C-alpha cells in the first residue's frame, strides 16, 4: 500500500487521469454549448457511439486517422441536426428525445459493426506523440506531454471554448439565448438558429469524443463501448456549472479518481474491487455537494422557444 504514494505511482495516476479525461472533455464541452443555449441533449451516448464507429470504420478501410476524425465529426453533426430538428423545431421534450437518440445511436452503431466488420478487429489509430522538448520536463512532461494527439486537442478545446463563449458575438448570443430567449429575440438574435448551431456543434464534438476512444485510446470498436460514458459527460456539465474550466476540473477529478482506484487494485490494496470502482462516482457527488460553489443553470434550459408566446 505504501508504494501507492511514491512519485512514480502518483505520476502514473496523473498520467492516466489526463488521458481518461479526454472523451469526457470533448463530450462535456460540446454538451455545455448546447445547454448554455437552452438545449439539454441526453443523446450524447448514442452520438459518441456513432462517432466512434465512423472513425473506426474509416481507419479500418485504410483511411488516415485524421479522415476518421473528420468522419466522426460529420456523423456527429448529422446526429446533432436530427436532435435539433426534433428538440428545437419540433419542440419535443428534450430529456426523452435524447434517450431516443441514445438508443438509436447504440443500435445503429452495433448493427453497422456486425454487418460491415463482424467481430471487432484492432486498427492502427493515432500513436502516442511525445511532444519534443516539453515531454522532457520532469514530472510535468510524463504527465501531460506523453499522449496521442487527440488528447492534446481535447485540452486545447478548453481555452478555445472559453474564448468562443466569452469573447465572441456567437458566444454572447449563445449565453443570451439560454438565459432569456425573449429578450435575445427582441434584440434581433435568431434564437432557434443559435440553438441549431450549438446542438450541431455539441454533437460534432460528441462524435469526436467517440473518435478519441476508437482511434485514439483504444484502437478498436466494440458494441456499446462507451458503457454510460456519455451520461457521465452530461453530468459533468452540471458539475462544471456550465463553464469550461469547471467542466475541465470535473472531468479531471472523475478520471483521476478512476485512475487512482485502478492503481489501488493493481497494487493490491485491501479493498473489494466493486467498492473501488464506486469511488469516482461517490467523490464527484461529494465534491459538488461540499466543495463547489453552486451556479444557477441557464434559465431557459430545456425550454423550447416559440415566438410570440
Amino acid at each position: 500500500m505504501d508504494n501507492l504514494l511514491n512519485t512514480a505511482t502518483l505520476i502514473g495516476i496523473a498520467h492516466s487521469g489526463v488521458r481518461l479525461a479526454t472523451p469526457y472533455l470533448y463530450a462535456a464541452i460540446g454538451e455545455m454549448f448546447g445547454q448554455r443555449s437552452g438545449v439539454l441533449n441526453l443523446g450524447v451516448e448514442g452520438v459518441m457511439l456513432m462517432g466512434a464507429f465512423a472513425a473506426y470504420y474509416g481507419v479500418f478501410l485504410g483511411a488516415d486517422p485524421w479522415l476518421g476524425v473528420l468522419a466522426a465529426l460529420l456523423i456527429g453533426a448529422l446526429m446533432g441536426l436530427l436532435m435539433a430538428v426534433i428538440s428545437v423545431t419540433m419542440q419535443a421534450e428534450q430529456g426523452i428525445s435524447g434517450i431516443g437518440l441514445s438508443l438509436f445511436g447504440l443500435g445503429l452503431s452495433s448493427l453497422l459493426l456486425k454487418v460491415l466488420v463482424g467481430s471487432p478487429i484492432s486498427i492502427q489509430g493515432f500513436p502516442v506523440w511525445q511532444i519534443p522538448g516539453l515531454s522532457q520536463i520532469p514530472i510535468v512532461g510524463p504527465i501531460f506531454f506523453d499522449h496521442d494527439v487527440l488528447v492534446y486537442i481535447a485540452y486545447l478545446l478548453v481555452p478555445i471554448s472559453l474564448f468562443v463563449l466569452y469573447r465572441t458575438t456567437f458566444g454572447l448570443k449563445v449565453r443570451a439565448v439560454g438565459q432569456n430567449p425573449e429578450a435575445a429575440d427582441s434584440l434581433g438574435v435568431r434564437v432557434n438558429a443559435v440553438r441549431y448551431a450549438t446542438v450541431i456543434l455539441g454533437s460534432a464534438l460528441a462524435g469526436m469524443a467517440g473518435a478519441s476512444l476508437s482511434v485514439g485510446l483504444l484502437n478498436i470498436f466494440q458494441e456499446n463501448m462507451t458503457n454510460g460514458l456519455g451520461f457521465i459527460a452530461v453530468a459533468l456539465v452540471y458539475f462544471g456549472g456550465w463553464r469550461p474550466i469547471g467542466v475541465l476540473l470535473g472531468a479531471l477529478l472523475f478520471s483521476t479518481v478512476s485512475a487512482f482506484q485502478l492503481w489501488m487494485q493493481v497494487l493490491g490494496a485491501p479493498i473489494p474491487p466493486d467498492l473501488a470502482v464506486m469511488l469516482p462516482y461517490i467523490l464527484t457527488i461529494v465534491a459538488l455537494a461540499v466543495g463547489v460553489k453552486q451556479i444557477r443553470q441557464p434559465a431557459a434550459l430545456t425550454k423550447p422557444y416559440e415566438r410570440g408566446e
Partner: protein
Amino acid sequence: MARFLRSPRFLEIALPIAAVLAAFMIGGVLLWLLGANPFEAYWVLLGGAFGSVSALAATLTKMTPLLLVALGICISYRGGVINIGGEGQIIVGALAATAFALWLRDLPGWLLLTLTLLVGALTGAAWGAIAGVLKARLNVNEILSTVMLNAIALQLMNFLLRGPMLDPEQIAAGTNIAQSEALPRTMWLLRLAPPTLLHAGIILALVLAVLVYLLLWRTTIGYRIRTVGLNPSAARYAGMPVPFYVALSLILGGAFAGLAGAVEVAGVQHRMLEGLSGGYGFSGIVAALFGKLHPLGAIPAAFLFGGLLVGANKMQLTVQVPSALITAINGLVVMFVVASEVYVRRARRRTGREAAAASLQSDAAPVTQASTF
C-alpha cells in the same frame, strides 16, 4: 370531417400512431437492407405483442415494471425534477427486498410478501432521497446525482452478489454465478395465467396508477408538488416549502422504482441477479412521457411500449435479425413520437381560446407546459 381530422382530440391519438409508422418505415428500409421482409417482420412484431393470450400476458408482464417506474417518473417530473435514477433505484429496491425476504423467510407468505414490497419501496425511496436531499439542501443537480447513483447502485449489487448475498448453492457448486438464493415460494406473487410469467404485480401497478392520480390531483400534497414543478417562485411566494416538495418528488419517484425492483424479484425472478433492472429505469421515463406525465395516461403508454419491446424480441426470434436493429428502431420510435407532439399543441392553439383554456385545465396537459423543469 376535415375539422375533426384537425381537432386536437383526434390528433392526440392519430399522431403518435403515425409517428410510430414513420419510424417503422425507416426501420423497414433497414430490415429490407438486411434481407428480411419488413411486412412480415412487423406482422410478427404485432402478433408477438398482442396477437395471442400468451403474447398479451408477456406484454402485461413487461408493462408492470414499466408502469411502476413511470408512475414515479410522473410524480418526479410533475414536481419539476428530471429523475434519471430509475435504474439504480430499481437495483437497490430489489437488493433490499431480496435480503429482507431471505432474512425473515419463515414469516407467513402474505405478510412476508407485503413487507418485502414495502422494504423495496422504502429502499428505493431512500436512494431517491439521497438525490432529493442533495438537491434540496445543497442544490446538487439531480441529473448529476442520479447518473452517479445509478453507477454506485450497480457496483453495490456487484459487491453484494459476489459475497454477502451470493447463493450458497453457487458456492457449493463452485460456479459462483452472481445471484442470490431463491426466495421462499410462499411469498411469490400469484401467477395469473400460467404457464406465462404474468403475475399479480400488474394489478398492484394498475391500482397504484389510480392512487397516484388521486394523490396528484385530489390531495394538497399533490397540488403542491405540481405547483412547485410548474412555478417554483409562485409556490415560494405562496409560502410553500419548495425544497421539501422537490425532495419529496424525488423520494416518491425512487419509491416507485424501488417497488418495481421488488415486484420483479417477487413476481418474475424469485431471486436477485444481474441485469434485473433491464433498462426499465430509462424505458419507464419513455412510458411516462408517452402518457403525457399523467398516471392514467401511463397505463396505455406502458402497455403499448411494453408491447413494442416484447414484439421486438419475437421479431428477432422469428425473422432472425440482429438485436441492434431493434434497439435502433426503438430509438426512432421514441424520437418520432415525442416530435409529433408539436402538431397536437398547434392544433390545440388553433382551435381557439376556449379549447385552449379547457385543455389547460384538463389533466392531460401537454408535456412542455406541465413540466417546466
